[in-house]
């Protein structure tokens, strides 16, 4: 199970054309426990900097993480 810590985040209200139906949605850069960082989408509860998150699922090959 991939886990990590939220390094930074935002909630997007003005999406690009292809994600128009998803907005508002939360994005986060996660510092992975295994090293490095990844930009991911958040599912479930909103997260803030310092929160622990875990991989939830891939949707259309987009990684979604959730608070743990």
């Amino acid at each position, binding site marked *: 199970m991939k886990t990590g810590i939220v*390094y*930074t*985040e*935002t*909630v*997007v*209200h*003005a*999406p*690009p*054309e*292809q*994600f*128009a139906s*998803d907005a508002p*949605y939360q*994005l*986060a*850069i996660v510092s992975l426990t295994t090293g490095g*960082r*990844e*930009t*991911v*989408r958040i599912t479930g509860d909103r997260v803030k*900097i310092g929160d622990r998150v875990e991989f939830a699922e891939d949707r259309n*090959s*987009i*990684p979604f993480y959730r608070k743990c």
Partner: protein
Amino acid sequence: MRSVAVVGIGKTAFGAFPDRDLRSLAVEAGEKCLADAHVSPSKIEAFYLGNFAGPSFVGQNHLAPYIAGAMGINGVPCTRFEAACASSGSAFYHAVASVAAGLNDVVLVSGVEKMTSQTTPKVTEILAGAGDTAGEVRVGATFPALFAMIARRHMYQYGTTREQMAAVAVKNHANGAKNPLAHMRKVITMEQALAGKPIAEPLTVYDCSLISDGAAAVLIAPLERASEFTGKPVRVLGIAQTSDQVALDAKDDITTFRAVQTAAEKAYRMAGVSAQEIQFAELHDCFTIAEIIATEDLGFVKKGEGGPYALEGRTCLRGERPVNASGGLKSKGHPVGATGVGQICDVTMQIRREAGELQLERNSLGLAENLGGSGATAVVTILGAV
């Protein structure tokens, strides 16, 4: 290396111009610049063009000869430079290099973007192409989202506040309201700025620069020939272009633009001046947080002190070091490919004492900082009176 001078400038208004196409904007700025320098198109030895996404915005490629030809410039090298929002800063850097090296003498440098013919979601998507489309963009990042994540981290590490960011917007709108070529000539209050519609939290619409059409041009020549063109040459004292990772998640510390720091160090060294000596600056406020970070990375204040520096009014028109007297990208507008050369025009106007109501008293040493993407390209230029 030869000394290089800006000997002519020309700008269109920035704004939404539904009846103007890309080429007509670029030609207007170029012809104003040639007229300012009293030079005919036949004297131009090379044409450097900054443009981010003409092919995506208006479906036109091969833009440099397309524009040059319409101005009567033929037979010389005409090249387009693309470096996201630093496209024309990059064109200017390379043009200065060619004149400094002695390859060319009389060079026209322009920047242009025509953005408003697309819908805002489409513009958002095209701009996102300056990020990492295999990573951050693929999962849904926009440019406001990337700078929102930068802002969140800066707030977390340094205690930067929403009010400090809003102060940048209030200041730049106050300045831009007095700029006849600005896109949004509207004064805004702190209350309005804080209550703006959210774009990407914590950024509201008032933290974001504008989607604009526009063009800008400068003519450069060796300093020793400047008097052939103008009685008020402005010298390029220092200039540097640098780069960094494109993807935000590949940077160690997103609260700093490393490329801006290194470009500034090089430009200060070349000019033989320190950050504290810079009297005024045009900074790349694509988002309010970007101006705050730029004042830190350029060494105007220590890391983390950019927020208070903005809120205390030290960068306002009558402050100790005015930043974005023109109104900045926030109020003047941000036709991305035109922005870098537009900044050079604005600094030159101050040094030539042609800034009207926005004229600064301490005007002999100015700096322009042009940022591409979320910091993967930076161009820092220091200009001085001769």
